[in-house]
């Protein structure tokens, strides 16, 4: 081509040639430049391509990773995970979901609506609308039916799934089985309900306080104090307490605050709304924080106005009884004195008649005068015994330990025992906490009775005692005349002497019975006529 150009050139003028030459020169330079640029660009492009391939590979790997990781999450998530289309047809479920609902997606299609517990349907629909509107819902709590028609409580957080055009095409939800929680929450709520029912219907007034301020009260507290619940909440404990009584409880309250006293009971008066007072037994317990500081105090208040009144009534009754007992005792003494005095006078007068007429009275008259005297003696004994009987029940009992062995010895020393009668203690007798004077009288009467009715040439009186639970059972046996069965009850009654004798008034055994009764014991006897009698009685240990 260059040769062909040469031949052409020979035919051109020099000027023309020169122009061509310059143009060609320029053209060459431009091409060279373009080639350089092109070369540079293509090198750049190559580098870029290399780079891109590398990052693409990386990206692919990343995506792959993410997908498998997601798949892992999807399958391993403990909570049930459900994907559904916008109509509610379930597209995908993880194992937990399959287990929870009991449906296997591989076998049968499910629509979530069929899972909804009917009573919760409206709530479910509202939540679904919220999902559509805002793209998500959280904290959905409702019941569902499982395939085998069991009811489970579930908690669901859900969100919409969009396609590339931002159009909602489905939804995904994480479903947690909260049946157990719900049940225990239900139990707690139920317990709370029960507890508040107990508190509210308690027959004790209950007041919760904090630093002396009333923070809660129950029905009974309101009823007792005549304030409404809200009125009470504005009040301080001192507002409803009598000042003197309040000072005492403040003192105890301080001990509770400072010295860790956990509980105390006081009897104090409260002031009702109408100003009247009510006596109450108040039992205060501290409820503490973990650091030991007091959170609040619970006061259980029992209205004891009635109780106190009863106690006062009882006391005044006791006092009246004591007084009338004393009066009776006094009366018995006066009567016995008034009855005894004339006996003394008659006795003296008879004696003087005898003295003054010692020479003129015949034997019969003297005998009659002697009969008057013995009658007077009998009368005197009777009065003494009646007085003694009436004294048994009255007067305060002076209980003290008494050694019964010593008591028997005292009787042995101070009483007359005919030579042919022996008094024997069969085994050591106990020491009892009793009224000494009365118990001495008891043994004395029984032993002197035994002495009186012994008709054998060798008389024997045996005293014995055996333990019987909370009691000691004593026995005093004799080998005297004995008592017929029909009289075994009667002899303990007043004036029931079986043998009219000079020493017997028929009151001795009545006194014995009364003393045993007063010691919460029992008395009875066993006897064989002609062989002897044994009196048994019990005395509390």
């Amino acid at each position, binding site marked *: 081509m260059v040769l062909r150009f040469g031949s052409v050139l020979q035919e051109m003028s020099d000027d023309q040639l020169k122009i061509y030459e310059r143009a060609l020169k320029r053209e060459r330079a431009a091409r060279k430049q373009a080639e350089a640029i092109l070369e540079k660009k293509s090198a750049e492009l190559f580098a870029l391509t290399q780079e891109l391939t590398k990052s693409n590979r990386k990206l692919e790997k990343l995506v792959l990773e993410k997908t498998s990781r997601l798949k892992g999450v999807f399958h391993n998530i403990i909570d049930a995970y459900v994907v559904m289309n916008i109509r509610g047809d379930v597209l995908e479920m993880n194992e937990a979901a399959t287990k929870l609902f009991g449906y296997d997606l591989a076998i049968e299609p499910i629509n979530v609506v069929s899972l909804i517990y009917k009573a919760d349907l409206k709530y479910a629909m509202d939540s679904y609308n919220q999902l559509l509107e805002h793209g998500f819902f959280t904290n959905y709590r409702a019941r569902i039916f499982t395939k085998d028609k069991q009811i489970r409580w579930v908690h669901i957080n859900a969100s919409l799934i969009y396609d590339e055009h931002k159009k909602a095409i489905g939804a995904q939800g994480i479903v947690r089985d909260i049946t157990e929680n719900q049940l225990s929450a239900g139990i707690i709520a139920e317990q709370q309900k029960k507890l508040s029912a107990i508190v509210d219907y308690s027959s004790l007034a209950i007041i919760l306080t904090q630093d002396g301020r009333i923070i809660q009260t129950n029905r009974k507290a309101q009823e007792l104090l005549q304030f409404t619940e809200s009125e009470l909440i504005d009040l301080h404990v001192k507002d409803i307490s009598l000042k003197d009584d309040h000072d005492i409880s403040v003192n105890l309250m301080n001990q509770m605050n400072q010295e860790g006293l956990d509980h105390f009971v006081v009897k104090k008066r409260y002031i009702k709304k109408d100003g009247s007072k009510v006596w109450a037994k108040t039992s205060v317990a501290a409820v503490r924080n973990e650091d030991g500081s007091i959170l609040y105090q619970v006061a259980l208040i029992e209205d004891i106005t009635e109780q106190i009144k009863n106690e006062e009534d009882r006391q005044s009754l006791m006092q009246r009884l004591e007084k009338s007992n004393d009066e009776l005792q*006094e009366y018995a*003494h*006066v009567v*016995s*004195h*008034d009855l*005894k*005095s004339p*006996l*003394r*006078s008659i*006795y*003296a*007068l008879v*004696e*003087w008649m005898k003295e003054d007429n010692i020479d003129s009275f015949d034997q019969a008259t003297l005998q009659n005068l002697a009969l008057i*005297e013995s009658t*007077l*003696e009998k009368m*005197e004994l009777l009065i003494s015994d009646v007085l003694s009987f009436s004294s048994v029940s009255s007067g305060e009992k002076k209980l003290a330990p008494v050694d019964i062995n010593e008591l028997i010895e005292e009787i042995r020393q101070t009483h007359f025992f005919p030579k042919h009668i022996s008094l024997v203690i069969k085994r050591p007798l106990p020491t009892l906490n009793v009224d000494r004077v009365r118990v001495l009288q008891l043994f004395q009467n029984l032993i002197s009775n035994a002495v009186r009715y012994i008709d054998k040439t060798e008389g024997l009186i045996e005293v014995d005692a055996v333990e019987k639970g909370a009691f000691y059972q004593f026995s005093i046996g004799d080998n005297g005349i004995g008592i017929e069965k029909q009289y075994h009850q009667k002899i303990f009654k007043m004036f029931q002497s079986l043998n009219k004798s000079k020493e017997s008034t028929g009151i001795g055994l009545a006194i014995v019975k009364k003393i045993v009764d007063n010691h919460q014991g029992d008395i009875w006897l066993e006897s064989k006529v002609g062989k002897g009698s044994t009196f048994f009685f019990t005395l509390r240990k």
Partner: protein
Amino acid sequence: MTLYGLYYKRSKTMKELKILLIEDDTIEVMKLNRAIKKLEMSHQLIEARNGEEALKILKEDKNLPDIIFLDLNMPKINGIEFLRILKTDEVLRFLPTIILTTSNNQKDMLECYQVGIAGYILKPLKYDDYVYKIGKTLDYWSENELIKII
């Protein structure tokens, strides 16, 4: 019959006593009189039927008795009330007062001893016993050194 006065030998130091008997019962007064006589004692007996009369006697008589025998059961001022009055008097409080009664009421006895008595004699039923007791009591007081109050 054993009469006290017949076998008992009296000592030479024995004094004759001036006794004020406060007793409302006529026969009781007779009893003491007869007993003193029977015992062949030469004590002087002044009789008062009740507490008021006794107080009158004690206020008027410049020659006060050596001892007082006092019955507890009397109308108006009873024995214990009389005793209390006696014990508040500057002079009369020194008079030994012996209770002579049929009542052995524990309450009365405690009260009497608390207020201040010189003895508490229970009147027995039998007259001989009575004479015996009175004899012993009077003998005892005859042997006592008594203060003369002016």
